[in-house]
């Protein structure tokens, strides 16, 4: 039987939305308050969904210890209490939560072996969230 398992993780980080190839006016028009040169921050919540067959001997899609360990090491430790604009992948990419979502999905998909990474969903605030499932439509 195939099941989907979702786990929520948290990290806090700052960012500034700014594109070097736009004029200051265009940046301000595009990003509004998010273009503040000093940046601002969020408590991000990242939902990671993995899927796979439920292993009969354990009753699990994958061991949560493995998933927690991987996400903590690869995602939470990488971004928690960081200024996202200073992280390698956002040197040439605006750290919108859309881009962060795609980046986290690819990092997980590339490195996590025990189950299939289906989807990453990020809540930037209680009022907005972003989902990425590898570019195709969401499976369900």
């Amino acid at each position, binding site marked *: *039987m*195939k*099941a*989907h*398992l*979702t*786990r*929520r*993780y948290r990290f806090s980080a700052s960012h500034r939305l700014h594109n070097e190839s736009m004029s200051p006016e265009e940046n301000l028009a595009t990003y509004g308050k998010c273009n503040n040169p000093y940046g601002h921050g969020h408590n991000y919540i990242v939902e990671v*969904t993995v899927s796979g067959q*439920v292993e009969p*001997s*354990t*009753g*699990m*899609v994958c*061991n*949560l*210890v493995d998933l927690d360990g991987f996400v903590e090491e690869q995602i939470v430790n990488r971004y928690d209490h960081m200024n996202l604009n200073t992280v390698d992948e956002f040197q040439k990419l605006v750290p919108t939560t859309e881009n962060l979502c795609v980046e986290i999905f690819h990092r997980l998909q590339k490195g996590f072996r025990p189950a299939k990474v289906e989807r990453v969903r990020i809540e930037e605030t209680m009022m907005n969230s972003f989902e990425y499932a590898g570019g195709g439509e969401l499976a*369900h």
Partner: protein
Amino acid sequence: MIYLTRRVEFYASHYYNNPEFSAEENRRIFGKCNNPHGHGHNYILEVTVRGEIDSRSGFVMDLKQLKEIMNREVVDALDHRHLNKEVPEFAHQIPTSENIAIAIWKRLTPKLKLAQLHRVRLYETADLFVDFYGEA
């Protein structure tokens, strides 16, 4: 096609142990969940059904009927129970959230006549949930 979701809570205890593993293996694989005295959760179950809207009633299915089925088939059987010791599905199967979601699907699906079961989502905690769509 429209989707309708109903939510219900139940409270239960469980522990994880596979008698085919050694005591050390059980502790290593299941960690704190292997405590033989068990531990508990406030489970939140979301049941999603899908179907066409009946033109006379405006319903996919009567919500009251869905609530009664969920209470009878799931809550009455699992609420305030020790899942390993009191629920037949888990006499020989580990009551992980994955297996509980599958067991709930199997309990509900034959009882639904008008609407089709789409998804069983079971929250073990606010930060952990399992979805089962009836896939083999």
